[in-house]
């Protein structure tokens, strides 16, 4: 079952500048920062109510840099939270939805899998099953 919108992913060129802008605009400070070790993608999260804004910056050749080169900075994906990601993926596959990840894989905050943007009308949708804390 989908419980809520977990976060909105936003691709940016200059994390420091973006963090300054959004700290001002939202009137709050980032709640977490991390770096995905392999592709060296930097992540900064702001919490707005139940949903986070996840800003992503990546080096040349990363998926984030490629996205910006093609479409410019801005909204990159939406992530919905589920309590059983494997069951959701199975259900979607059975319903004929084209999956990018057929199996869940480890993400920064739990198990994740992507749908689209191909076959999803241009929207990249991430499913997240957060790790129990």
């Amino acid at each position: 079952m989908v419980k809520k919108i977990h976060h909105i992913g936003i691709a940016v060129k200059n994390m420091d500048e973006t963090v300054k802008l959004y700290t001002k605009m939202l009137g709050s400070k980032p709640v977490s920062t991390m770096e995905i070790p392999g592709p060296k993608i930097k992540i900064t999260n702001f919490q707005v109510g139940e949903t986070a804004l996840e800003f992503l910056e990546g080096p040349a050749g990363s998926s984030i840099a490629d996205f910006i080169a093609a479409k410019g900075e801005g909204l990159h994906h939406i992530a919905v939270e589920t309590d059983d990601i494997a069951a959701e993926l199975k259900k979607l596959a059975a319903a004929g939805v084209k999956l990018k990840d057929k199996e869940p894989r480890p993400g920064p905050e739990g198990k994740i899998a992507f749908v689209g943007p191909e076959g999803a009308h241009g929207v990249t949708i991430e499913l997240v099953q957060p790790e129990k804390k």
Partner: protein
Amino acid sequence: MIKRIHHIGIAVNNLKESAALFEKVLGVKAHIESVPCQKVTEAVFKIGSAAEIDLLEPMGTDSAVAKSLEKRGEGLHHIALEVDNINQELKTAEGKGIQLIDKEGREGAAGQIGFLHPRSLSGVMVELVQPRKK
């Protein structure tokens, strides 16, 4: 004050097709609504008490959504933040150096709305919404 994310707007060419996909992914049915003042037909998905997902199909070719589809194709269009006083928040944003599209709140589907320019916000179109009192 910014209270929460009110909705995420997604520009689509074919509301029916896109709504069918999102119904599968989100496991809820859409509520379809015409919004003549913004020249769109919307499919609104409510997920619990949290942020909504709004699919937007333009009516005609001269709306903001139609132009975005032409320029950038289908996909994520804007995020809307809920505020309790739209005119005050627009003024505050402008005071912080954020470029405004709307200087004052105007009537939208969910209440009084105003847009901030993506140029000032790392490419993200941000809508402020002061929902109508129910």
